[in-house]
């Protein structure tokens, strides 16, 4: 039984169908929906609509061109990379958030760490790539130091400029992002609950499994979803590290949009963007299912 779900005061159920109350309730959502409609849905519709436009008018050719192996491969790589960096980022981010929240809530350390996380969550692109190149690239000082001690980290290939390298670099901004979105959930855990569990004879494991776990699971999975989407559409860092070919979907989109040798295909780029939205929608469905299952399992 979760503590937060049962209201302390039972009130009369409000009518949910018919009546002015129902219509008025929807008014409260109108500002948000209107704003998002104009500044998000409309551009998205324009982009998605572009995927049905070819050089000779309306066409489905952009969509049927999707099953080329290099396009499918790029999306598979994107999903693998995003899932990997999301899981690693979420777990490590949760650990770091826990270490932060167990400190003084008004202390200097917490302020510094959350501010640093805010900055690093948005750090990316050519400069992040260079930061890693300067650290563990071929001429990075850690690489050189290890080489001086006989360890060649590039003995099996230039992994930094492949998917594995991207995975490492992506965690640099995924972890801070997870810390920021997970901290509020951790803040909601009352220390009295720990005491209560202990006074009832429960061990640490019982506390996490029955008390804190169910409360934190939704926020954890929500963070996981956000990290996935964040990594899926990230482009600039990958473009700096792997400038040849298009091994992930966002690079593929950029290349079909901005090629200056005459290979630009805006219709295809729009179609690829549509597929990206569909993939994330599917992941969101999976996340919803996972969340419901977990909630049931943890009850």
């Amino acid at each position, binding site marked *: 039984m979760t503590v937060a779900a049962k209201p302390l005061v039972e009130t009369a159920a409000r009518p949910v169908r018919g009546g002015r109350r129902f219509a008025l309730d929807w008014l409260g959502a109108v500002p948000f929906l209107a704003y998002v409609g104009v500044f998000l849905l409309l551009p998205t519709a324009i982009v998605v609509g572009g995927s049905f436009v070819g050089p000779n008018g309306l066409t489905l050719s952009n969509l049927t061109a999707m099953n080329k192996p*290099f396009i499918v491969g790029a999306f598979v790589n994107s999903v693998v990379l995003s899932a990997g960096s999301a899981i690693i980022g979420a777990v490590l981010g949760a650990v770091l958030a826990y270490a932060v929240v167990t400190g003084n809530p008004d202390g200097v350390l917490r302020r510094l760490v959350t501010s640093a996380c805010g900055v690093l969550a948005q750090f990316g692109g*050519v400069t992040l*790539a*260079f930061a890693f*190149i*300067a650290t563990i*690239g*071929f*001429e990075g000082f850690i690489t050189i130091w290890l080489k001086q001690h006989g360890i060649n980290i*590039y003995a099996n*290939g*230039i992994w930094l*400029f492949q998917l594995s390298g991207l995975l490492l670099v992506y965690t640099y901004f995924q972890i801070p992002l997870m810390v920021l979105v997970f901290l509020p959930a951790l803040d909601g855990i009352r220390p009295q609950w720990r005491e209560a569990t202990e006074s009832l004879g429960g061990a640490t494991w019982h506390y996490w499994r029955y008390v804190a776990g169910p409360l934190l699971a939704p926020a954890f999975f929500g963070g996981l979803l956000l990290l996935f989407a964040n990594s899926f559409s990230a482009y600039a860092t990958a*473009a*700096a*590290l*792997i*400038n*040849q*070919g*298009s*091994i992930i979907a966002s690079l593929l989109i950029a*290349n079909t*949009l*901005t*090629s*200056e*040798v*005459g*290979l*630009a295909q805006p219709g295809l780029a729009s179609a690829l963007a549509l597929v990206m939205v569909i993939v994330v929608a599917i992941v969101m469905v999976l996340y919803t299912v996972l969340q419901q299952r977990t909630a049931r399992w943890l009850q």
Partner: protein
Amino acid sequence: MSGAARRLSILAGALVLLTACGQTTSSSTTSAANAKSAADMGGMAALIAAAKKEGKLNIIAVPPDWANYGEIITGFTAKYGIPIDSANPNGSSQDEVNAVRQLAGTSRAPDVLDIGKAVTLANLDLYAPYKVQTWNDILDNQKESTGLWVQDYGGYMSIGYDSNKVPAVTSLQDLLGSGFQGKVALNGDPTKANAALNGVMMASIANGGSADDISKGVDFFKQLKQKGNFVPVQATTATVKNGTTPVVFDWDYLSAAHGKDVPTWKVFTPSNAILGDYYNQAINKQAPHPAAARLWMEYLYSDDGQNAWLRGLARPVRMAAMQKSGKIDSAAAAKLAPVNGKPTFLTDTQATQAKDYLASHWAQAIG
């Protein structure tokens, strides 16, 4: 004077003024947006006055360290007092054209474009025809006949390298040696960037291929990758200085810019593969500052502008004419690497063939 008479006289005076103004405008030149040359506007002085009135110039994708554009920008502003707004310095030619379309009608749209050949030819509907005063100095095959676009500066594809970090490069095959492990980079992806496409083409010509056959270049880079000498990372000034990309295929004038970060930087053009290319200038048909745009063109193609590019180690399009007239900056011209052979320039067909081949073969070769 009675009220009615006063009103009538005011009306009459206004009519006189209006017709007077109307006469001056109708006897003057065409508007800046329709001017096809400085003469159309009533001469250079009128063009300068109109440009100053507009008060601003928007340029795009013109980094200050690209062929010494920085000097041209400050020179133009110093000479005419017109401030320049330089947007999206790292943008590609396609970005420039996208900006023209997406910002049409706003005051932030680019006034002029400096773009590669493929993008130039694919967007002819965006430009306004204009012939600069030095039009006749430019060869016919380096300009569009009505002035829609005209070549501005160019150079030859080269291999730039840090002589401190890698052995000297005397031929393309040297790059396959063990001293170049994980050190060679292209300036971009050839299916995306013009410089990279020409880099692969130069490798092809030096490797036994020709301007019609880019496959030998793709094979060369495949070999380079298999040996572990090729790195796919984007080459920037920072990666060059840091030593991660000490060998870069790039235009010679762009490569030379690395010299200010790395004093030991050398630029090598293989004598059996001199591949050249020129960029093109065009004026936006819907430029928010049409007079300033045309004045900028005049400045670029004047001796001052052309010599500034020359000082950036690029070859200005009027170079031959200026050498004849003696107006060339001979000190700068002497700094250009000597070219011992006949340069090749890709025709449109060859460029199209090359990009089609790359589209279907590059990713597999390099991936």
